[in-house]
């Protein structure tokens, strides 16, 4: 009894010391009616204390609000550049780039595969010239940039480094994240080029390069978002994502990297869906599981290498095409769950995204929605305000229990290696099967009416399809981009391009060398994304998924 009391006292004292060291925003931390509130409530565990269930920082949003990072990208690089500048003017604090499908798959705009897809679902980038346009007049030494790309991530990172260099910004000044989470591509999003093992080699090279040269860069954003969108449950999203994280850790350790060094650079990306408390429990469990595994299984000793920092996006799949305006309410609730779950950054979906890419107005409303959560609700005043609630604590434990059961299965599948278990789970269809089963279960519930989706299977009056203003990307984007690509190709020095591409193939053939420098040299010759992808494909091969329903 006595020592337990002491421990509690020590936990509070330790937290108070940490809190006092933190810089605090200039704000009144009181309710709307003028009641002052404490930075945190409870007396067992405090935010910023292992295993970080209650948040990764002692002062949480009192020091810094989450980054309001709106994902944007469409049409040509110039189009997206204008949207970026608009978002920054409107108070957005980080950029997040959506690439079009050909770019995501390592195909150029003039590939036969690209027909009809150029600039449609994101921005088209073929060469360094497009990247120059994309970030024109944006100071890369002050803005933080997220790039959502996986298969060809190394090439896009190389282009970003090259653009910065042109503007006198060195790699060590660059802040941001590249998604680069290839494992979830085989499980959910399906934007892969090479088979899993060579892909893991590329990622390990990128981790090595960024750890050495880009200390402010997050080389992998381990993403559950797409797993959830593909139909998984909350616990599967949590478990598959963290297991992928363990896999990257095991691969980096095997490559001789120090877990304390690269561990600090890993970050996560979760979905915030509509079941409010389940989501909050999931976020809290994610921090706790990650910290425990990093410390106990992988031997991290630096606390920063145990922190599960994450970005959150509201659930695109929850948005309805029927009565799209009501999606604003869904997004608001999901954004609130993310804030209560302690996210480090947040993208709020636009209400029209079940129909098309967001219009500028819809994107503004989405940004305003999270600004309301941040500035009007008061939830930012107190860290982990739901911590200690019996239901929330139970839900957190339950999420952890379900996730641990999945880790045990993967560990088994890999004979004591989560990385091998994950490779095996990809090869034997475990992940896609589990996700498809969960998606079908959900659909059956909606179809039978046991699960109500407002506007879809209940409360359907009031839909007004005539009155919709959708963003349309015309064929002119494709024409413009093809012309641009041709121009770039006609002006570059073909000999330099060929030499740089052969060098990539040579490095790909030699696992002791790092691919990043060779890819950076190649993008500077204006070699295209597809040419670079092909230079590696001749060594690594391609991946074709078995079609399983």
């Amino acid at each position, binding site marked *: 009894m006595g020592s337990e009391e002491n421990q509690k006292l020590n936990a509070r004292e330790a937290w108070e010391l940490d809190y006092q060291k933190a810089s605090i925003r200039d704000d009144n931390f009181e309710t709307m009616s003028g009641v002052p509130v404490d930075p945190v409530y409870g007396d067992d565990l405090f935010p910023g204390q292992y295993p970080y269930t209650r948040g990764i920082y002692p002062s949480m949003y009192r020091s810094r609000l989450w980054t309001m990072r709106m994902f944007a990208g469409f049409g040509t690089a110039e189009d997206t550049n204008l949207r970026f500048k608009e978002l920054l003017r409107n108070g957005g604090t980080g950029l997040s780039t959506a690439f079009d499908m050909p770019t995501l798959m390592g*195909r150029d705009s003039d590939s036969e595969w690209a027909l009809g897809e150029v600039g449609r679902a994101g921005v088209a980038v073929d060469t360094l010239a497009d990247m120059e346009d994309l970030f024109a007049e944006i100071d890369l030494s002050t803005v933080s940039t997220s790039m959502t790309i996986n298969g060809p991530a190394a090439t896009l990172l190389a282009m970003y480094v090259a653009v910065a260099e042109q503007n006198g910004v060195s790699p060590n000044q660059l802040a941001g994240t590249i998604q680069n989470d290839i494992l979830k591509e085989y499980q959910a999003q399906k934007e892969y080029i090479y088979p899993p093992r060579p892909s893991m080699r590329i990622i390990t090279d990128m981790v090595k390069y960024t750890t050495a040269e880009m200390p402010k860069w997050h080389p992998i954003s381990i993403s559950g978002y797409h797993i959830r969108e593909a139909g998984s449950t909350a616990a599967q999203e949590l478990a598959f994502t963290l297991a992928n994280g363990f896999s990257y850790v095991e691969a980096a350790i095997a490559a001789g990297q120090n877990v304390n060094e690269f561990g600090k650079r890993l970050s996560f990306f979760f979905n915030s869906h509509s079941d409010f408390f389940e989501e909050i429990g999931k976020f809290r469990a994610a921090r706790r599981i990650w910290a425990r595994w990093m410390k106990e299984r992988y031997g991290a000793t630096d606390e920063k290498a145990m922190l599960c920092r994450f970005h959150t996006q509201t659930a695109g799949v929850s948005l309805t095409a029927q009565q799209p305006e009501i999606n604003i309410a869904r997004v608001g609730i999901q954004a609130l769950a993310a804030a209560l779950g302690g996210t480090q950054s947040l993208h709020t979906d636009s209400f029209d995204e079940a129909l098309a890419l967001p219009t500028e107005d819809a994107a503004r409303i989405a940004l305003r929605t999270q600004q309301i959560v941040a500035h009007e609700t008061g939830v930012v005043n107190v860290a982990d305000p739901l911590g200690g609630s019996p239901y929330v604590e139970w839900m957190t434990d339950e999420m952890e229990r379900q996730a641990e059961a999945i880790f045990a299965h993967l560990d088994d599948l890999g004979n004591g290696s989560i990385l091998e278990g994950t490779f095996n789970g990809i090869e034997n269809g475990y992940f896609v099967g589990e996700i498809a089963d969960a998606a079908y279960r959900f659909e059956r519930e909606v179809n039978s009416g046991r699960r109500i989706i407002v506007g879809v299977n209940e409360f359907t009056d009031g839909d007004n399809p005539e009155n919709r203003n959708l963003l349309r*990307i015309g064929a002119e984007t494709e024409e413009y981009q093809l012309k641009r690509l041709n121009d770039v190709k006609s002006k570059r020095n073909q000999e330099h391009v060929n030499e740089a591409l052969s060098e990539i193939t040579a490095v790909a053939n030699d696992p002791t060398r790092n691919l990043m420098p060779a890819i950076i040299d190649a993008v500077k010759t204006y070699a295209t994304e597809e040419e670079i992808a092909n230079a590696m494909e001749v060594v690594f091969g391609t991946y*074709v998924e078995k*079609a399983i329903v």
Partner: protein
Amino acid sequence: MGDYQQRVILAKLGLDGHDRGIKVVARILRDAGMEVIYLGLRQTAASIVAAAEEEDADAIGLSMHNAGHLTLGPKMASALSDAGMDIPLIIGGIVPDEDVEELMSAGIAAVLGPGASAEEVVATVQDAISARDEA
């Protein structure tokens, strides 16, 4: 209807990897007693025509989520007619209402939007097949 089991080919045409919807549709059609042949991701018009021929398909369903439907839908329809195949082509996914007419006039038999119920999915496929049979 008799004992004849309708055969439906489902595929993702092009680079789009969003396969949640098409997998759910595959199970819905299977539960309704149809034979479903899912070709998987990254199919081309040529690979779909070849499969339809080989499987003697009664209908083809494509799923599109990347706003490429106005290019890829008509391209698929003309690939089928070039091959002399009269098989109803149905597109599901994110297709704005205002594009439906253009797709229908390009030879697409039906479009299934987001939120379509299982009954609508089955009825749409069956109607498209019987419309072709009656023609």
